[in-house]
């Protein structure tokens, strides 16, 4: 066990208040039939309301929780209770070797994306064949798209405005069939633009130009540098093999966890973590998905930092990454890293776009900006000492008040996402305190 966990850190893991309160009640020796631990895992058997005791297990290094209780909460009250008890009374736990523990299930490892590799005989020839087939399909799909696109501008955007939703949706569906889901998404996003009011023509044309750039890039993919190829492939919808990625070497740093954001579409929830390397001054994005009631990863806590090695997905401007090795849960965020002025940030953004024009959300940490407000209580933007301003959008009224409360009219550190037009603040660092919005 590398980090000493305090009560408050453990309580902070609870998904809700009831769990936190219940867990405290479970953190007593008498609730547990047996207790054990080794360097990596703590475990215990808790007598619950069922006939069999619940078996609860925590992987401390990965912060993965596993319990046989029927609760859907992750982590459940038993796991937090067990953790609290361990923090209080380590003596109550018997030290055991890993072998003695194998009767228990291995905990759900949640920090990786479940690319199970067990017993898979790698058939390289078949794999290469499948890859070639997909490439051919995508190529055909992109050719089809190019014709559709040319047709569109030949007739003009005014004509396109009169098209029904299915016009865009069908084109997108064809791309899904062609195994190019990334481009399909870009097309679906276009569908609403013709009816989005003033300036729609410019917005639509921008998006069309972007897709055409992708088509042109794909046509001469082999002539481009490897990193640029990777960006184009990612944008089209190829995924990179995470297992393979984890074998390459990464960047070890103290990574500050600056934001977490979850979006839900249909039944798929996507979770974004933004990290910032203290030494490398590099931002990193960790992306997780969960379907339906599947729990999302909770091991990274905004406002804390980890000493970890991150491997980055191949890109001309690498952002997306995986945690390869978690060395230590290092502590709290005690600084807002990033740019000292909005000008610096804009320059960095331009450089990033020059390398990867597909970046949609650019991570921005600003060390000292003042949130400025209109009289009607809306947020106008964040302003730096030179008077430059980024316009904000996407904040709820509750978040706006919180931002105002945290700043009090003074400069604060803010982390957020810049989409080329608007800034979405996600967390604030003020008076030594980190707060997620």
């Amino acid at each position, binding site marked *: 066990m590398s980090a000493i966990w305090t009560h408050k850190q453990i309580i902070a893991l609870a998904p809700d208040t009831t769990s936190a309160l219940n867990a405290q009640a479970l953190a007593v020796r008498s609730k547990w039939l047996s207790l054990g631990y080794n360097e990596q895992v703590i475990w215990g058997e808790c007598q619950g309301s069922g006939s069999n005791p619940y078996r609860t297990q925590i992987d401390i290094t990965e912060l993965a929780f596993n319990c046989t209780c029927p609760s859907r909460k992750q982590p459940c009250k038993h796991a937090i209770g067990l953790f609290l008890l361990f923090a209080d009374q380590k003596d109550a736990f018997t030290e055991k070797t890993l072998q003695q523990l194998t009767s228990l299930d291995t905990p759900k490892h949640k920090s990786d994306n479940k690319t199970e590799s067990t017993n898979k005989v790698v058939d390289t020839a078949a794999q290469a064949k499948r890859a070639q087939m997909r490439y051919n399909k995508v190529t055909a799909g992109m050719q089809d798209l190019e014709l559709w696109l040319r047709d569109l501008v030949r007739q003009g955007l005014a004509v396109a405005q009169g098209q029904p939703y299915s016009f865009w949706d069908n084109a997108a569906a064809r791309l899904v069939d062609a195994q190019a889901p990334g481009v399909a998404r870009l097309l679906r996003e276009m569908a609403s633009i013709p009816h989005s009011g003033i300036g729609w023509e410019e917005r639509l044309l921008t998006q069309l130009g972007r897709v055409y750039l992708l088509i042109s890039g794909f046509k001469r993919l082999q002539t481009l540098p490897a990193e640029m190829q990777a960006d184009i492939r990612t944008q089209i919808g190829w995924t990179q093999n995470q297992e393979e990625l984890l074998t390459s070497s990464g960047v070890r740093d103290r990574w500050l966890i600056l934001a977490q954001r979850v979006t839900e579409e249909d039944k798929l929830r996507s979770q974004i973590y933004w990290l910032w390397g203290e030494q490398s001054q590099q931002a990193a994005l960790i992306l997780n998905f969960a379907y339906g009631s599947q729990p999302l990863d909770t091991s990274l806590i905004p406002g804390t930092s980890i000493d970890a090695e991150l491997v980055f997905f191949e890109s001309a401007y690498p952002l997306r990454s995986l945690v390869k090795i978690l060395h230590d849960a290092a502590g709290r965020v005690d600084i807002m890293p990033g740019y000292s002025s909005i000008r610096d940030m804009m320059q960095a953004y331009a450089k990033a776009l020059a390398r990867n024009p597909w970046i949609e959300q650019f991570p921005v940490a600003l060390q000292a900006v003042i949130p400025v407000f209109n009289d009607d209580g809306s947020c106008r933007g964040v302003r730096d000492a030179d008077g430059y301003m980024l316009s904000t959008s996407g904040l709820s009224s509750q978040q706006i008040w919180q931002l*105002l409360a945290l700043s009090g009219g003074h400069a604060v550190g803010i982390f957020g996402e810049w989409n080329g037009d608007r800034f979405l603040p996600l967390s604030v660092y003020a008076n030594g305190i980190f707060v997620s919005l």
Partner: protein
Amino acid sequence: MKHLWQEVVKIAIVGTERQALKAIPPDNKLGEILNCLDSSDKEGSLLSAAGAIALYQRAGKISLSDKQPLQKACEKEELLDCSLLSRQHLALILSGNAQLLPEWLTVAAAAKKRVPSEYLPQLLTLGQKQSHLRTFILPVLGKRGLWLAKQNPDWNYVSSEITDKAWQSGSKEVRRSLLQRLREQDAHIAREKLQKTWKKESGEERASLLAGLEINLSMNDEPFLEAALDDKRKQVRDVAAKLLSKLPESRLCQRMIERVRPLITFNHNSVQVTLPSTCDGSAAAKGDRQMIRDGIDQSRYSSALGEKASLLLQMLCCVPPSLWCNNWGKTPKQLLQVVNGSEWEKMLLEAWATAALKSQDSLFAEVLLPDASKFYHTFLGNGEELVVGLLKVLGQDKADALILQILLQNQGKLLSVNHPAYTLLKHYQTPWSEKVSQLVLSSIRQYVEVDKQWQWGMRSLFQSFALYMEPSVVEAAAELSGVVEEGSFWQDFVNEFLATLLFRFEMIQELR
């Protein structure tokens, strides 16, 4: 540059089959790229140009320069910041344990700490919606909270400024809270402000605003209230009568005294009751009309008591109980002994309890409360209000001492509905002393140890005790988990009870 983009957009709108792109590329890196485009490919060159220019613009975007003057920043705090753990406690409370909020705020205020900035919006909104929380919230807002509240009109209850605009055009609730705040600062000015607009107010507004005078009520308000007894609206008259009945020196109280004096007499060491005649508003009797004017309401009637006795009860409620002590030369205690077991005991106790609360008579509160179970189920249906109110009249220390005394006198007796301290404990909703907490805890233990079944009411009552017990008994309370049987009726209770106590213990420790 901008011109070029607009040209591209224009052609895109009409379509390349009608017009081709013939713009002159600028003399820069972008121009170099645009020059490479194959102009014979009308669609391809347009789309490529659009992609390149849009990206060029996005990368080269110059951020806005904001020239507007900045808002005045908040001053430096005088109160202390609370610890990270205290922040987490507050977060837990705000996310679903609201019953613990007043205690967190009270302890923080005593320790001269302020609410962390990030929770201010949520707390200010809570105070806006639940006015009883305001007295707890105001002392811990700090400079930042006051600064923030100024920016949002919804939170204007925080500021001490009362603007004429809000007074003239605010909603009924806003105006009432404005008046209440002004009453706290200067009762006299507040009343004068109300009197100035009084004649122009609607009936509903008059009733609502008049009720605001309850704060810092004094004999100075009496003439105004007495006049309000003649208001056109019954609602207003009722409020006025209610307030006047809280002023023992008021003309209304004096009239009540004159009415009941002949009806209640003391003879041969017992209290004799003569029932009044009925009060008929339609009758010509002047006395009856006067009585109705003073708020006596024939429709407030208890069938258990009967029509005439219900009238008497209402009148007695407006007579300060000390009057009887003075008239008959008895102490409150003796008075209670005299009526003990008599026909009219229940009615008289209820009347005295109500009147003691109105006149804030702590001597009476002290002797009445041990007998609370005798009048708790009142004829007029306000038992809870009476017990809570009298405990408050008595004050924290005396109330605690009284309950402790009753508990000590009845040690060994099971804490049930029939226990003499039951009614008081149920409504004793301020922090308990350690001794009271310990005694009650051992009573709870009795239930858990013998695993008494089906005690739903007691179990949920005990659960609420965890909110008021002195949290230092948590160690002794932890023994409960040793005596509770696995899977028993009491197991969940013990878990939850301990969790609440432990939480409060840590919360208070951390704030102090």
